[in-house]
């Protein structure tokens, strides 16, 4: 029984352009200009979803972004699927497929509906109260709770669409293109200001654009026609940029705003290819004018959530804008005049109105007189006490409201209907204003929060500032703009206005029923099923703060963030607790105002563009030679070079053996390099490193350890004295930028008197490290002119050299414990020098090795890796590196901290070597270390920091930190693992060549 509820052509509907779409598998038709909501209503479909907790049937309630119930899943199971899309916002396009959420097997027959019958058992805090005991059962409950949680389904395939970010700078940003926003845009742009006007809907003009009644006139024209002309004029203004379908999500400090511009969601899928879907606009505005309007309040009465119950303003919008009747037997229920505007529109369109229920007694209003002239029955001083109709409202009960509004009196009248419009007055949309840090004040007259204190250069105008009637808007908007923009006058200063609205309102937050309160279901949050009863329960249970009541009852925590019902929640708390609304305050409005897609947030930063990655000049060679890579900071470093079918372990064992037995080659270009020059360079190094630098001869290298002021190891590396006043410092790969920052900080702030200049040269040099017993033969083959004798070129020294015409710096330094050279050349020669070394090393089985082998080799030698064997709680003393801490120097960064009462404790965690009793057993890095397995609770002494199987020593080796480990040499400890306990012995952390014979060989 399909009905067509299309009435006269709506404002934005193109009836010559028919569009087909699918809803829950059935094909329907609408017209260009329709939203999914208006098209469904035209097909007489109200039931679109099920509520979150009780699975009650729910319908379309609003016509805008505040919609709590009509949220759907688009294109289920495709890569473009999107959950929780508001049917009131999505414009229909050919091929649109939408389906209901939170129901199974279907929206018409939903098993979860049983929750509605069980609802007396499901009060606020049900989950907190029920699933706490016994605690061990949580894992069993959790499965079912998680399954029932959430509304739509998130996509499982990669998003095929393109998203972008864009910065916009403007003099004035105007949010909202209703009548006040349009006026502000024209005034600002005409006064020479670069103006941006954004509107979340596809069309300009807000609700005034379809205001077409003799009761609202501007300069003797219908307000709608007057505004239409204004819109046509502002479209020609050069200073003004207008963006529709653009919703401001966040308003941050310093007038920085984020907006989402929706570019393709209204197009048929086949027209979206290669187009940007959403743009995230990052707007920095000198001035911001907020004209976000207001949201109509529902009324809170028993069973106020049935499909067919809509906001009265939504019914008007559907009729005037989209040419759709929401029902054939309409009843309006109101406490103020705006429902009569809806009534007049319906009368104009020939849509039947059964009755109007008005909370107020006799009111002197031109709008009411006009409605009465049309013989429409108005029940004055009445309230709705209950409704019926499971999947669509079919009856309401009404009774007279007592003088104090707290109870109902007289006899009950039953009226039948298929649609009920409710109007509880208006709530200014102050969300963005408060996000920006603005403070609200409470206006007692009509019980609204309005902007009070502006935190930045901004202004709120129109309904979001509490000006609800046409005459207030037209008079106050130009006045406040004259002040705000500091101009003499506007073209709107002498408008002729006639506006008939009577401002009286009878505000009752929770309307009474003849039922006992405990039996009523008066919904405050429609999406999360929070009722007035839940709020009162929370108060009875001792919750007082509005923020606590919100979280306990989940009021305002749905995807709509309670845009409709939050005020009522506050009102009910205020009435119940006897607190004043103004003192209660509101809950915090947080960004985003309406949900953003993840695509919008990440923009182009997806896949390989997610983060920058840095490649060494030799990277291509590693790729060609099938290296596996690991990420070190932003660097891609060669990890190991598997041959044929080698796994990582096999490759690393082979590489490590080759490096010790003949020669290995490593790309060390990623190490941080800082060029240090100036007459005070030596003194500077004395202050930043723990050891002494003044006596380091030119041409020599020295290992340095850098601490934080708290005495903890921060970074390490070798620094070479290139000249009297010239050093080159190397840092760890990951620490380079931070070390540079720290050195600059001290130079600029603590020691500005020092003559020192720092330059980061990490990217300027490529570093090729050749190690192993045959390294000298190989490097001397590459640089034949250089004297490689140990006398002239000993360990820890440096020489300038040339490879052909290429200048290079050669350091004889070692991180592996082998005889080893590092060749530094200008970055773009890196690959050629690497290849020369490979060529020269051919006869020596020169083996490229990656970071994993580097780690293994240095662990054999007991060299630490800052960040792996240290964790910002390790002093040099804890690392058993006392030798590097100068006793003579008066001061260096962190020195004083090395003898604080805490850092001299004997039982600090200290670095030790660990040898497993079974030499083939490899420990897991991060595993805990204990002494007594039977003690309860087990005392954790420390953990394993590095662990490998050493092919050179033919046994498993590990480093770890252990409480008081320094004095535990030879002691047995236990590593308890999931399946067994591993016995280890504390050992010296230097496992290989303690005498440094290899280094000096």
């Amino acid at each position, binding site marked *: 029984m399909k009905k067509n509820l299309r009435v006269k052509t709506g404002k934005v509907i193109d009836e010559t352009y028919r569009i087909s779409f699918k809803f829950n598998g059935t094909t329907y038709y609408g017209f260009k200009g329709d939203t999914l909501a208006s098209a469904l209503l035209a097909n007489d479909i109200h039931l679109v979803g099920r509520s979150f907790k009780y699975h009650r049937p729910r319908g379309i309630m609003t016509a805008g972004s505040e919609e709590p119930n009509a949220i759907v899943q688009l294109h289920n199971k495709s890569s473009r699927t999107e959950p929780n899309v508001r049917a009131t916002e999505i414009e229909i396009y050919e091929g649109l497929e939408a389906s209901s959420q939170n129901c199974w097997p279907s929206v018409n027959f939903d098993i979860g509906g049983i929750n509605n019958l069980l609802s007396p058992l499901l009060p606020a805090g049900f989950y907190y109260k029920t699933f706490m005991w016994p605690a061990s059962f949580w894992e069993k409950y959790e499965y079912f709770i998680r399954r029932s949680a959430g509304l739509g389904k998130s996509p499982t395939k990669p998003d095929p669409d393109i998203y972008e970010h864009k910065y916009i700078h403007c003099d004035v940003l105007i949010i909202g293109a209703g009548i006040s926003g349009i006026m502000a845009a024209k005034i600002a742009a005409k006064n020479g200001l670069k103006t941006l006007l954004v509107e979340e809907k596809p069309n300009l003009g807000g609700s005034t654009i379809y205001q077409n009644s003799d009761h609202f006139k501007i300069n003797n024209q219908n307000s709608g026609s007057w505004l239409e002309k204004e819109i046509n004029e502002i479209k020609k203004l050069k200073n003004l940029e207008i963006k529709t379908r653009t919703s401001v999500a966040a308003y941050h400090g*310093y007038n920085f705003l984020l907006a989402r511009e929706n570019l393709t969601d209204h197009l048929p899928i086949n027209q979206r290819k290669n187009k940007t879907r959403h743009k995230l606009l990052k707007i920095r505005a000198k001035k911001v004018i907020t004209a976000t309007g207001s949201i109509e309040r529902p009324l809170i009465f028993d069973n106020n959530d049935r499909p067919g119950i809509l906001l009265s303003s939504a019914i008007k919008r559907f009729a005037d804008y989209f040419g759709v009747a929401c029902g054939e037997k309409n009843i309006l229920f109101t406490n103020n005049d705006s429902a009569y505007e809806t009534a007049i529109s319906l009368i104009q369109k020939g849509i039947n109105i059964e009755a109007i229920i008005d909370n107020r007694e006799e009111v002197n209003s031109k709008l009411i007189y006009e409605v009465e002239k049309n013989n429409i029955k108005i029940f004055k001083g009445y309230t709705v006490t209950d409704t019926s109709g499971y999947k669509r409202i079919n009856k309401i009960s009404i009774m007279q409201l007592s003088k104090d509004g707290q109870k109902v009196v007289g006899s009950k009248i039953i009226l039948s209907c298929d649609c009920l419009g409710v109007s509880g007055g208006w709530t200014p949309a102050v969300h963005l204003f408060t996000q920006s*840090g603005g403070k609200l004040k409470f206006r007692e007259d009509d019980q609204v929060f309005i902007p009070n204190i502006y935190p930045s250069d901004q202004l709120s105008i129109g309904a979001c500032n509490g000006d609800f009637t046409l005459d207030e808007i037209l008079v106050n908007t130009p006045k406040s703009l004259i002040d705000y923009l500091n101009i003499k006058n506007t073209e709107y200063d002498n408008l002729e206005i006639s506006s008939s609205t009577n401002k009286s309102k009878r505000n009752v937050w929770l309307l009474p029923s003849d039922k006992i309160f405990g039996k009523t279901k008066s919904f405050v949050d429609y999406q999360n099923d929070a009722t007035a009863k839940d709020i009162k329960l929370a108060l009875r249970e001792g919750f007082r703060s509005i923020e606590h009541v919100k979280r306990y009852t989940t009021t305002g925590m749905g995807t709509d963030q309670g845009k409709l019902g939050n005020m009522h929640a506050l009102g009910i708390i205020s009435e119940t607790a006897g607190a004043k609304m103004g003192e209660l305050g509101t809950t915090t409005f947080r960004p985003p105002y309406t949900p953003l897609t993840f695509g919008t947030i990440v923009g182009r930063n997806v896949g390989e563009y997610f983060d920058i990655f840095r490649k060494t000049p030799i990277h291509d060679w590693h790729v060609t030679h099938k290296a596996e890579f690991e990420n070190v900071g932003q660097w891609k470093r060669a990890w190991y070079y598997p041959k044929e079918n080698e796994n990582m372990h096999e490759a690393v064992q082979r590489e490590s053996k080759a490096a010790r037995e003949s020669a290995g080659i490593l790309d060390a270009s990623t190490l941080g390099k800082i060029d240090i020059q100036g007459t005070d360079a030596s003194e500077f190094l004395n202050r930043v490193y723990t050891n002494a630098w003044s006596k380091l001869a030119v041409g020599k290298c020295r290992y340095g350890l850098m601490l934080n002021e708290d005495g903890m190891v921060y970074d390490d590396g070798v620094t070479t004295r290139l000249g009297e006043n010239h050093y080159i410092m190397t840092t760890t790969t990951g620490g380079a930028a931070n070390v540079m*920052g720290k050195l600059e900080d001290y130079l600029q702030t603590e020691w500005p008197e020092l003559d020192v200049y720092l330059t980061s040269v990490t990217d300027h040099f490529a570093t090729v490290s050749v190690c192993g017993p045959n390294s000298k033969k190989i490097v001397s083959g590459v640089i034949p002119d250089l004297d490689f004798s140990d006398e002239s070129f000993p360990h820890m020294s440096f020489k300038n050299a040339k490879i052909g015409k290429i200048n290079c710096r050669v350091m004889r330094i070692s991180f592996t414990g082998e005889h080893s050279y590092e060749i530094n050349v200008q970055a773009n020669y890196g690959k050629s020098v690497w290849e020369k070394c490979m060529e020269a090393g051919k006869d020596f089985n020169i083996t490229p090795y990656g970071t994993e082998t580097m780690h293994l080799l240095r662990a054999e030698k007991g060299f630490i890796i800052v960040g792996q064997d240290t964790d910002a709680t390790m002093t040099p003393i804890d690392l058993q590196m006392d030798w590097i801490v100068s006793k003579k120097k008066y001061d260096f960064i962190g*020195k004083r*901290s090395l003898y604080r009462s805490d850092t001299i404790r004997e039982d600090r965690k200290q670095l030790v070597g660990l040898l497993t009793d079974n030499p083939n057993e490899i420990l897991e890095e991060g595993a805990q270390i204990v002494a007594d397995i039977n003690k309860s609770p087990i005392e954790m002494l420390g953990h394993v920091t590095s662990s490998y199987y050493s092919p050179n020593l033919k046994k498993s080796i590990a480093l770890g930190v252990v409480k008081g480990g320094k004095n535990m040499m030879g002691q047995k400890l236990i590593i308890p693992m999931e399946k067994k306990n591993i016995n280890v012995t504390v050992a010296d952390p230097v496992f290989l060549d303690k005498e440094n014979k290899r280094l000096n060989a």
Partner: protein
Amino acid sequence: MFIINCPFCGEREQSEFKAGGEAHIIRPKQPTELSDDQWAEYLFMRKNIKGIQFERWNHAHGCRKWFNVVRDTSNDEIKAVYKMGEKPPVQ
């Protein structure tokens, strides 16, 4: 996101800067002469004011200079910026 008026470069977005904690904490010239408590005072103790706070900022993605900022932490309004070594222009 703030706009910070770098004393060397002018107004720039906050994303170009790095915050560096409380300003005007001078590293003791003779740390060895300090007791544990005195050293801990320098090392660990920082104010966390609601209201006017003096803090260090670094134009990390710009001129890399450190400078001082006077900021009202209750509304993030920056009252003044001044170079290292200069006296605060406001109290």
